[in-house]
């Protein structure tokens, strides 16, 4: 099985203010975009990120062939227990996920 990262052109994640993380999946083409819109299920992403399904916001932006996920951080940015202040390494989880 291939990974999501191999299928799309780029996946990035970043803090969106101290209390949110956002992940952008740049699909690269309309065909890949449609495939991912159809087959990447919210629950799978929520489980991977260990967030509640209802906390995960999903945006499908066809103009850019982008699927975006945003979710509140369990631990705010820079809190004693935070391991990645900018949340920029979280994209790796989606990138390495089987797809």
């Amino acid at each position, binding site marked *: 099985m291939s990974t999501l990262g191999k299928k799309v052109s780029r996946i990035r994640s970043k803090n*969106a203010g101290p209390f949110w993380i956002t992940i952008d999946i740049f699909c690269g083409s309309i065909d890949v975009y449609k495939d991912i819109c159809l087959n990447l299920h919210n629950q799978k992403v929520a489980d991977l990120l260990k967030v509640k399904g209802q906390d995960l916001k999903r945006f499908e932006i066809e103009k850019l062939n982008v699927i975006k996920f*945003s979710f509140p951080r369990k631990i*705010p940015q820079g809190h004693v227990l935070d391991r990645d202040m900018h949340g920029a390494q979280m994209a790796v*989880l989606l990138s390495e996920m089987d797809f």
Partner: protein
Amino acid sequence: MICSKVLVPSGVLGLGFDIEALKNGLNRKPDIISIDGGSTDSGPYSLGSGTSKYSRSAIKSEWKILMKAREEAKIPLLIGSSGTCGTDEMVDWMEDITIELAEEMGQSIKITKLYCEQNKEFIKTSFKKQKISSLDPSPKLDADIIHDMSHIVALAGAEQIQECIKTGADIILAGRTTDTAIISALPLMKGADPGGSWHGAKIAECGALCSNNPTSGVVLVEFDKSGFTVEAMASNASCTPESVAAHMLYENADPFILYEPGGYMDVTNANYRLEKNGKVRVDGANWLKSGTYNVKLEGAKITGYQTSLLVLLRDQNYVENAKTWVSKLSNFLKKQIKEKMELDTPLYSLEFRLIGVNGTLGELETKVSEPTEVGVLCIITSKKTSISNEIAKLINPFLLHYPLTDNEELPTFAFPYSPVHSDRGCVYEFVLNHTLELNHPMEAFRIKISEV
């Protein structure tokens, strides 16, 4: 017809920009130079301690270039979120640098300062009067937490920046502002389309990040009655409809909506198209005014005082069993701390992170692989530096020698430096994700003018 042209040299002062690109931008006769000076992006320390993330020398050297550009172009120069966190003291810090440079370069200038820091009593009263509303997610807030915050700032919007522009200042040094307000303020004043003014400001807030060459820094935005046109100023940079539209995704939880003081912008129906000469034309964004005038608040308080230690495991048996070793060691150390310091766990925290195993992602890590070595980062946090340092010294010999099993020769791991413990000082946390309702935009802000 163009209402105003805003030159943005870079996403933030201190990060650098292309000098040739700045010259190209100045040749286009902009009406103002606007640059951001900060954000919460680097964590709570800057606001908590009220200090700049960037070095004074980096700020001074870049500010000198912009002050020279302003003197030649005879247009206002504006910085928002001075000194990263935008506290009052950081506005004054920026003024010190400005005065120093004005003297060095023989410039006579009028400086307008915008102060955005909030008085705790005012915030407490506003909280009691239910003028403070929480955003999602909502951290707990009460009078004690307000009292404990070391700094509270309100994010100024276009209205407060416009008040500064009206003073006829050469240089405007603003405290905490929204990243966009420093760019949108002038076009909004000059009658540009409100949706387009905010949208153009959002696109240009990180400088050339909306182009194919982010490090070149400089972009020019031309605002008019129906939208805006954005263009990268470096010869080796260009904007495309995709690079511009994609910037709406960056650091935004919602790619279509952006809340600002006094309303919100909606770009759901925005159109992006490539024009001649590498310009991107954008229109179709809407500005929706809110019933009340709310500004966002940011606040940080001290969490505690931290000391860290790092020990390296290279021995294959310990690398393979790092998790078990740390779990046994942690239990053992907690007993030692209780016995020798008479300190219970709620009074301190002792955390181990396995670098090479799951140091970055913790419980989210999905990959299992065999590392060559493991760095064990030990983080101690307590209410006093002396306690954290004392715990560090107490656990030091065990980090060095703690055995996995009872019947083995005493192991010795690698300490990478001496002293092993690093006193990390005071650590802070963000405690506000709230907005404050104001009776009028200047209620929570103050302007001061000086001339040098």
